[in-house]
């Protein structure tokens, strides 16, 4: 599907993502890895409070953008077997791989962590291969 290159909102959005991550590191001393924080909130009692607070922030973020710009719209996938399989792959993969786009891709690469650089090259590379070569047939609305 054709989309338009939107560099200005992308750059502003990236600054917000970076600032959110910095805030968590400066005040709580934690790396803002979203997969790790969600899994941690489910799996362990210790530190569940701050993790749940972070997740609530994640959940309400889009409402804030919509409040400032009521015309803002984003697509979501329609439910299908492929969507479920992809969710499972993302869940297993980010735990076995110790992180996702935020923890490895933003925080880890910034810290020049070798593990994060390798992980990011792999998931972006495989993501490009799969998205380019496989017609997953997922519909969006």
């Amino acid at each position, binding site marked *: 599907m054709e989309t338009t290159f939107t560099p200005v909102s992308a750059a502003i959005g990236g600054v917000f993502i970076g600032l959110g991550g910095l805030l968590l590191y400066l005040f709580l001393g934690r790396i803002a890895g979203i997969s790790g924080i969600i*899994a941690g909130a489910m799996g362990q009692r210790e530190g569940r409070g701050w993790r749940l607070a972070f997740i609530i922030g994640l959940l309400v973020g889009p409402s804030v953008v919509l409040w400032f710009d009521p015309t803002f719209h*984003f697509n979501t996938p329609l439910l299908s077997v492929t969507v479920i399989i992809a969710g*499972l792959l993302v869940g297993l993969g980010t735990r076995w791989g110790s992180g996702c786009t935020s923890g490895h891709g933003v925080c880890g690469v*910034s810290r020049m962590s070798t593990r994060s650089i390798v992980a990011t090259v792999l998931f972006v590379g495989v993501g490009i291969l799969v998205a380019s070569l496989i017609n997953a047939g997922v519909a969006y609305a």
Partner: protein
Amino acid sequence: MRNHLFAFIAGLLMSIGITYSQMIDPIKVKAFLDVLGHWDPTLLVVMVSALLTYGIGYALIRKRKKPVFAPKFHLPEKRGVDRSLVIGSVLFGAGWGLVGYCPGPAMAALLAGSLGTLGFVAAMLLGFVLAGKFPLPAGTK
């Protein structure tokens, strides 16, 4: 309580960034990953902007001995590239390429009320639990 408030604001800032940059829209993400289609480099701008913001901030913060509200900084303890990191990152990339959702955007989009997003997140959470129960043998690559 301060921990919870700052974790909430961190999650909120990241989610506003994910939304406003349109990374929350899987069509936009797939338009970046599908390099053989009508390629849209927006996601690249998001990543570079987030990396620069976090990288500059991290360089300033790292001189501190401890975070503002916590006794110490928690950095990942694992060192070196192992089999679990590689296999996990490849599986994550495959799931990301199929639908265009990584954990942050999928969670942020949850309250938009799409069944597809709900199914993806439910499968992802199941993946977190399964990967926690069945860790991959690390064994160096």
